[in-house]
């Protein structure tokens, strides 16, 4: 076959695939600026009415605030644990390394409904449901694999002779970690944190199980609002969710790239 034709088919195919991947997440954005109170597509007119309503509505604003709080707290839990675990996985000498690594990665493999139900049953037993701290803690478990993945990747290319260099200069092992290792792997740690924020911010299932009826987060509030009626504020919430997530994702990608560049420089030395 003509190679030109083949290339054209390839291009069309790639474009269709990209559209299929991107359009569903972007289609809600015009709906958020619609004049119609039904979820009509295409929207009949442009207005920022529902946007203003969303940010004036106490219920939606509280839900957004809850999501942000939960995301922040969950990352504050998962980040130190993930970094410490990565250090141990790269530097430690233990027979159980593989076992620990697989266990840490488990939340990535298990269906989220199963994981959420399990967490719910355990927390119910200890009368801890309806508690946003518990949502944050459970989200942290989901985030740890992402932190471990990005940070171990950075540590694997880290030149540990720099730690020895710091030690003979008179730095204790903690000072050496804080002032040499951490600054060099900082972009990877930052990327892990951003992916963590993203994971928690748009997570609905666990939040629904643990605090769904009393303290809904933004995704849960959305879910509740379209279960029983059609709410024109849902596309606005979806837009907020999408934009925040995309910004976090973009920032994480940039940090990962920066992190690679930094470890490259270090290898050249």
């Amino acid at each position, binding site marked *: 076959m003509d190679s030109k034709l083949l290339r054209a088919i390839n291009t069309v195919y790639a474009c269709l695939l990209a559209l299929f991947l991107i359009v569903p997440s972007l289609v809600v954005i015009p709906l958020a600026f619609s004049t119609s109170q039904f979820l009509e597509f295409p929207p009949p007119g442009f207005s920022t009415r529902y946007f203003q309503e969303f940010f004036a509505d106490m219920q939606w604003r509280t839900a957004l605030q809850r999501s942000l709080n939960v995301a922040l707290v969950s990352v504050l839990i998962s980040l130190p644990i993930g970094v410490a675990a990565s250090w141990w996985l790269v530097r430690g000498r233990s027979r159980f390394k593989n076992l620990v690594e697989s266990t840490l990665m488990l939340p990535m493999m298990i269906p989220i409904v199963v994981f959420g139900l399990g967490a719910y049953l355990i927390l119910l037993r200890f009368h801890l449901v309806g508690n946003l701290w518990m949502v944050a803690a459970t989200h942290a478990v989901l985030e740890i694999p992402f932190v471990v993945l990005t940070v171990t990747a950075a540590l694997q290319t880290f030149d540990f*002779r720099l730690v020895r260099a710091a030690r*003979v*200069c*008179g730095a204790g092992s903690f000072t050496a970690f804080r002032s040499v290792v951490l600054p*060099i792997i900082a972009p990877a740690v930052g990327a892990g944190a951003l992916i963590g924020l993203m994971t928690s911010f748009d997570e609905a299932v666990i939040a629904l199980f643990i605090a769904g009826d009393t303290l809904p987060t933004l995704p849960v509030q959305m879910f509740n609002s379209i279960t029983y009626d059609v709410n024109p504020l849902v596309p606005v919430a979806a837009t907020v969710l999408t934009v925040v997530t995309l910004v976090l994702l973009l920032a994480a990608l940039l940090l990962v790239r920066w992190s690679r560049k930094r470890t490259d420089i270090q290898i050249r030395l």
Partner: protein
Amino acid sequence: MSELAADLAVQRGEFHLDVRLRVAAGEVLAVLGPNGAGKSTLLGALTGQLRPQRAAISLGGTDIAELAMHRRRIGVLGQEPLLFPHLSVLANVAFGPRAAGMPRGKAHSLAHELLGEVDAGEFAARKPAAISGGQAQRVALARALAARPELLLLDEPFSALDVDSAPRVRALIGRVLAEHPETASILVTHDPLDALVLADRVAVLDGGRIVEQGPAREVLSAPSTPFAARIAGLNLVTGTVTEHGLDGLSGILAAEARIGAAGAAVFAPSAVAAFRERPDGSPRNVVPAELAHVERAGDLVRLRLRASDGGPGWVDGLRADITPAALADLDLQPGGLLWLAVKATEIVVHPQRAAR
């Protein structure tokens, strides 16, 4: 004043290191040895990276054998500079003092001062990635000195540098060490030239033991063990540096050699040609000598020479590698007289650390 006295025994698999060392303040001890002789094991035991079977390490009157790595007051300059890539050159040098709790301003002015000492003041604001290997090695020296070590370990510090910058960094380290008479230094190297230029004393390490030690000049010019001779390998003549070479010898002056100062002419045994009659044409570096004995050296034969009556004294102990055919042409027995010629271009005159 810091003096090092170390008595170490380390077992690593099959390998056993058993060494006693003493280095005075301001003194430089060169530890020479081939790969696998135990040089890095020795350094690891001193810095605290390895756990020795037996260790008594006294440094400046303190027993440091049980101390953690960062409390031993030992500075290290390795093959690679290992500067911290995220810090400026200045912050790299200030790292040790800052880790020890020195206020930022004071640490930075100390770092500026040390960078000046190693001629790297102009790079202070740059990142390590933006300077050359030789420059980075100078900065690493300043960083090691900034922590005010009582013992400085120089671990093959020139081996990763290119041929142009190695001699310059070597000369600079010699100068800087002389400016720090409070610090004892150990230079680990496989290059006898490093030892000759920088060290007061040489210890030859082989199979985990010190097989020979003494003043650098003696060990390198008249090695008493075959092993030391093999590492030294080169012909070495000491004297005073002149405009054209060294005393009566013509040669090339190394960049850092100073006329009128102590120096050493170094040339390979293969650079020495041997003749039955005085050769014509080449007026320089032609001298009479007496053949002491002949030994095998791979495919060549090695002539050991001694001074002849009326000939120059520096010929004593010289080695000349020639082909078996050339030896046959000479038709000579030990005790016989011959003429030697060494091309001036084959002789390099190096500065020598002033005798203490």
